[in-house]
């Protein structure tokens, strides 16, 4: 994510920085929302969530290069593929440690990070790849600021996905069941909700969001098997910023985060990019552990 930029602190430079921030923030919002939903319903944290993003990017890359599918349609394929991976993960690994020691979830996700990263190396190699994008280079020229179509479209796609998700959670029966499980899993069981199925669905949904984030990442930025770790932490910072379990909070947190990161890079230099996430994370955790919009700290 290192970009060449002439260091001129002008208005147009700042505008471009903001746009980058929002576009990057969008990717992290998707990832953070997935983590947030899984955490909300299952009280489980999957530290390998960023690796799902990485695999999603590779799936989209493969279908769009090998089968010539349009880059934006490949997002759907990535989502479907990651949903399946999510089901398998939930069934084979996390299900078995759920409810035991909390540290076990961390250990399992760490093992999974190794598995996914090295599987990606084996299947796709170590070189940087990028999904061929029909909109590459095109954009609106506003006051000497180039607003890339690809970035605008990314923002639009994330908005559509989030609206769809919102409708799913608030207006459908399964959304109601998910919200019930997230509040009182034992009581929802008594109310006739099959929480096993809700868990599988939730995990698949979260993984699919990570897949979409991965495909968008691959369209906007070059990627390799090692990109997964940092987005996980950034998604965590966003969740903490926005408040645990709050989806609107994650959206605002994601935008704030993306802008903060790009502004820090712009003014302080590239090496600060990753440190920003942690500085924010630690500051928020120390000052207000429930986040800016947190409903209730876990």
């Amino acid at each position: 994510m290192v970009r060449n930029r002439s260091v001129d602190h002008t208005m147009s430079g700042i505008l471009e920085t903001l746009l980058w921030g929002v576009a990057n923030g969008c990717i992290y919002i998707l990832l953070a929302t997935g983590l947030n939903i899984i955490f909300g319903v299952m009280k489980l944290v999957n530290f390998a969530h960023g690796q799902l993003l990485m695999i999603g990017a590779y799936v989209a890359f493969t279908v769009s290069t090998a089968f010539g599918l349009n880059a934006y349609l490949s997002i759907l394929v990535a989502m479907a593929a990651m949903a399946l991976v999510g089901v398998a993960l939930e069934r084979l690994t996390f299900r078995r440690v759920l409810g035991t020691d909390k540290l076990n979830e961390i250990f399992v996700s760490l093992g999974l990070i190794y598995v996914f990263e090295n599987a990606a190396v084996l299947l796709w190699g170590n070189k940087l790849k990028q999904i061929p994008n029909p909109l590459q280079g095109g954009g609106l020229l506003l006051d000497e600021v180039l607003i890339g179509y690809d970035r605008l479209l990314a923002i639009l796609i994330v908005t559509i996905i989030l609206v769809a998700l919102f409708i799913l959670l608030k207006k459908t029966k399964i959304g109601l069941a998910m919200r019930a499980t997230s509040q009182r899993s034992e009581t929802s069981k008594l109310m006739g909700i099959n929480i096993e199925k809700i868990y599988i669905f939730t995990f698949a949904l979260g993984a699919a969001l990570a897949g979409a984030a991965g495909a968008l990442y691959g369209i906007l930025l070059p990627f390799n098997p090692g990109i997964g770790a940092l987005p996980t932490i950034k998604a965590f910072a966003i969740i903490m910023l926005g408040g645990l379990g709050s989806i609107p909070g994650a959206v605002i947190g994601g935008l704030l985060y993306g802008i903060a990161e790009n502004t820090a890079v712009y003014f302080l230099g590239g090496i600060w990019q990753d440190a920003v996430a942690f500085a924010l994370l630690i500051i928020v955790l120390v000052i207000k552990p429930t986040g800016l919009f947190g409903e209730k700290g876990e």
Partner: protein
Amino acid sequence: MQKMFTQLLGSIERELLNFHQSEKLYFVLGAVAVGLVIPLVASEYVVGEVLTPMIIFMIYASSWNLLAYSGQGSLGHAAFLGIGGFASALIVIKLNLPPVFGLLLGGLFSAGIGLLIGLACVRLKAWFLAMVTFGFSVIIVTLISQFDTVIGGIMGFPTPLIVERGLPFYYTTFALAAISIFVMYLLIKSKTGLAFRAIHENEPEANMIGINIAKYKLIAFVLSTFFAGLAGGLYAQSIRYIQVSVFDPYYSFLPLMMAVIGGLRTIEGPIIGSVIIVTIDSYLHRIDNVLHGLMGPLFPNVSNVGPPLRMLSLGLFLVIVVIFLPKGVSSLLHKINNYFREETKKADNIERK
């Protein structure tokens, strides 16, 4: 602090009184004897590159395990390994002190930083602590790069040695490891250790019976970072050179893997885990060529399938251990030991009849 010290003395006394009766003593003496004799017959390369790191990682993994006793997990222990390494070397170089002080001061410096991080983190749930510690290990790289003119961490620099490399360094490390692990053992057996375990088992209940949770979590954090820093100082000396690469996430995952695979929350777990992981790390790459010959054609995108395949298996191994053998390899050894004891008992009974 003083109370803790008297507690420690108390548990030393208790342990010494009970020690000669239990068969634990034979295991410990056996392990120490093996550790003392093996380097005499091993080659110089094995002593320097395999056995010494193995012993150092025993301290490091045990320090991680100490934290786990109190129910906390760190994903960024490399930060403290690295801080210990850098501090111990820099203190010696800049202040012209004898290297022995460097080791101790490096550990103390790491514990000081650990205290600051711990103060911010003890209230956090497991996941957030994991995230913050991981985050800290990334920030520290940025900080060290930022102050490179003073520290010189990007290019790295040679570290001053306490004793000559080879056998003398091995035995020094061995002695320090034995002392460190013994201290951790006594700590776990003391009242402080009991409080750690109570907090891990059930935090609200521990709180209810009057255990100051924040205090004990902080104690665990500070002690753990002290030993991690000590291990870092030794590690920097054993590889002769220290660089920011010591903060690589790989070094954060190592102690976790060792403790979990060996047996979490057991004193012997990190020791067994360190033996397993360092042995795998040092010798398994020899089968890379065979692996590549077998599997290479399947994966045309990689020049050598060995390393990713080995790492993948390590990850899978960790997942499998957590799911199917949650108490690690040490529990397996306990089972085998118990089985043999039962068998000998049966044999005794038959003879008596």
